């Protein structure tokens, strides 16, 4: 293996390992890590035979086996399965494979081949697949818009904290409590936007069960309800 290739492989291995060790974001780590996994597995499987199908089988299969068996081994370390131990594991495996295959030479002849019809078909397929993913993600995100949620955020003597959130702009709403309590600005109408929940402290008496309703100001309809036993006033 020429020095340039050896050095390039080392750099990829160490960058991927270092990014994992410092808990770097997946957007930055993933390209290096996936490249490191592929380069290591490809180098290890290179002598699996002349047939590309055998080499790809061994690349994929060896990654699967390494992950399962490697995870089993890491389990017995005191730290266990952490980002640091996994990153260290893959660095060790990659360095071992790099040393084992240090006499291999990688051919880059394929870079000089003129792209033919097959390349064009595969390129078009990749483009269509990308569009498919964009369409799929758009559809899934539509389904996951958070509904209007209301919850008890806390109880203290003389008050109950209530929070409301939504994934879209909604309102105006107001709180209505049964049995009736002293009116404060907690009962003023409010609207909700996506983001941080709105929290209000509802004044209550002691030793009673309260229905706290979220009511649509325009229609008067009860949208959400929490039901809480207040804390006794000592």
């Amino acid at each position: 293996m020429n020095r340039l290739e050896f050095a390039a492989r080392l750099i990829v291995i160490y960058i991927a390992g270092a990014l994992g060790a410092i808990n770097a974001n997946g957007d930055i780590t993933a390209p290096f890590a996936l490249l490191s996994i592929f380069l290591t597995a490809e180098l290890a499987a290179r002598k699996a035979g002349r047939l590309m199908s055998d080499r790809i089988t061994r690349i994929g299969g060896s990654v699967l086996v390494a992950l399962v068996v490697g995870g089993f081994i890491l389990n017995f370390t005191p730290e266990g399965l952490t980002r640091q131990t996994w990153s260290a594991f893959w660095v060790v495996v990659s360095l071992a494979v790099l040393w084992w295959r240090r006499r291999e030479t990688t051919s880059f002849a394929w870079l000089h081949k003129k792209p033919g019809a097959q390349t064009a078909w595969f390129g078009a397929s990749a483009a269509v697949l990308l569009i498919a993913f964009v369409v799929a993600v758009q559809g899934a995100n539509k389904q996951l818009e958070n509904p209007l949620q209301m919850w008890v955020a806390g109880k203290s003597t003389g008050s109950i904290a209530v929070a409301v959130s939504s994934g879209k702009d909604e309102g105006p709403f107001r709180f209505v409590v049964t049995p009736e309590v002293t009116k404060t600005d907690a009962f003023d109408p409010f609207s909700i936007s996506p983001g941080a929940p709105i929290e209000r402290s509802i004044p209550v008496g002691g030793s009673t069960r309260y229905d706290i309703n979220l009511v649509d100001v325009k229609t008067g309809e009860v949208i959400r309800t929490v039901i809480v036993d207040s804390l006794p006033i000592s």
Partner: protein
Amino acid sequence: MSVQVENTRSTRQDHADVDLNIEPTPQLRHVAGPVTFTIAIGLLLTAYAGYMARKTGGTVDLLIWSGNFFLFAGPAWAALAKNVHRSSRIAAVVIGGTAAVVSRVLLYPTFFAYHDELLHLNSLRLIQERQHLFEVANSSLPVSKFYPGLEVATDGIQQITGLSSHVAGSILLILARLVLMLSLVRSVEWMTKSARIACLAGVLYICSPQFRFFNSQYSYQSIALPLCFYAVYLFGTSTRKSNWALVAPALAMAAAAMSHHLTTLGAVLVFVGWWLVARHRKTHQPLLGAMALLAVGIVAAWTAFAHDQVLVYIEEIAQSSIQSISNVVSGSQSSNKLFADNGGTKTPLWQRGVSVLSILFTVSAVALAFWRLRRNPKDRAGLTSAGVALFGVAAMYPLIPGSHLTVASAEVGDRSSSFIYVGVVFVVATWLAAVKLNAWRRVAVMGALVITYAGGLVLGGGPPWLQTPGPYLVAGDNRGVDAYGLSKAYWMQTYLTPNSRILSDRVNGLLDSTYGHQHVFRHLGDRLDMGTTSTLLLKGPQGDYDKELINYADLHYLVADRRLATGLPRFGVYIEQGEWGTIGTQERTEPPPLSAFTKFDRVSGADRIYDNGAISIYDVRALNDKREMKR
């Protein structure tokens, strides 16, 4: 059929890059590119079907079935066609098989939504919390604690790359499917010395009912099966003659043994059956006996390690299957409703037709292959021991449709089909390759393949509503996972103490454990009597008895999804097998009353602390003083 010389450890000549069974022709076609493009079109149609299903809430049959057709037609044609370059043929079939997993990811590209997927995602979460294996059991699937192969491999990808568990899991599934297809195709090519037979076998395996859905989901058999196929491939194609040749397949078997119980048992039966056939025929198969012994040893050792859970789990499956079958035979229980779910949805007539036809085609093809083998002594003599073993496996095919008499035995039959189908595809592929196909016959075979594929999708995909996203359905597996359930689960993760004890229904329970990080009661994990405990959610007000049950189960919270009162559960249960209303041979005929889900509104000591319009959460800790159940 090619004559196969016994003693088939690979030789260097076997690796020649041409199909040895066709006459050399001046121009072999390269078809992988155009076939891949048709597959990509199929994936786009599938993604669009998912998008439209969510947007309109209606059925998207035309889109989804068009997508299915494009996913399959190209690889099937590439396997059947004449004068196709070997590598092109293999690439087309392998990409087609791998695309089945990609199509599932496209339907749910940002989260796992199916029942088994959420179970295993929860197992992954538990491992990641502890950062060690074998420590905490998933209460919904306790046996998975001892079979963490899927989760540990996902964790590896996730930790090394920094990607999310869903992305890491999806990458793993696609990689595993690639390994499965290549291992299958190359193993058959090794046995028959024919890429065409191998690719036909690959295409036929795509037609198996479990291929597109069950074995593509994020579940432990989805990694175990490829690892088992990989172990067989490594052993068969190895050129080494020393004991070192056993190391790689043994490691693959070990990884498989760590991943799933019954699948690795299937692999052990493959190696042992192969060895027995070789012994019976007195053919020399180097290292085969040692490999079979290793496989038995590895799986036995792992089973001994996991015996606490796995033997109980397998015993329960076996008991419920036997009980169901005997109930059906004695008439005390009706047989499994074919082509209909508990919610009353019936599979469309044309889909029922193609699924029956696909079974008929498969049975006929297997029968014709056996008949041809019987009539051709030369072919019989040329069959390897592995080939003979696979013929024996193929003969078990009728067990698969027969097992669908009852729900419990259907599960066993479906899981076995992943192995039985290997025998079926080998047998049918070798027969098909020997048949002289003119243009019309090729069209007819193509048509039969498409019908068999479509039938397999119907048989293995479950009711039509299960196969795509869409509006909420009561206890509807993926269709029960929606923004209400997910937002409630994420709220739990943020605001409730982790691993609080919760009673929740089937779908919400999965979300609450996986995304909500709570401990959800289930019979398997908690050894609770679900017949009585389930009345907390499924029966109207029971007064003090409700409080007794809360204490019996040591509950902290109840999750009440009011939508469950609007219909019957799609898979027969709201919570799990053995719940109130389904004990023994009882069958539910109407949904619980709405009062079952609001009864704690007027119980002092139970606070309704959360409401999102469909789901409420009750804090019942004030009612729980851990008294024993009196009734």
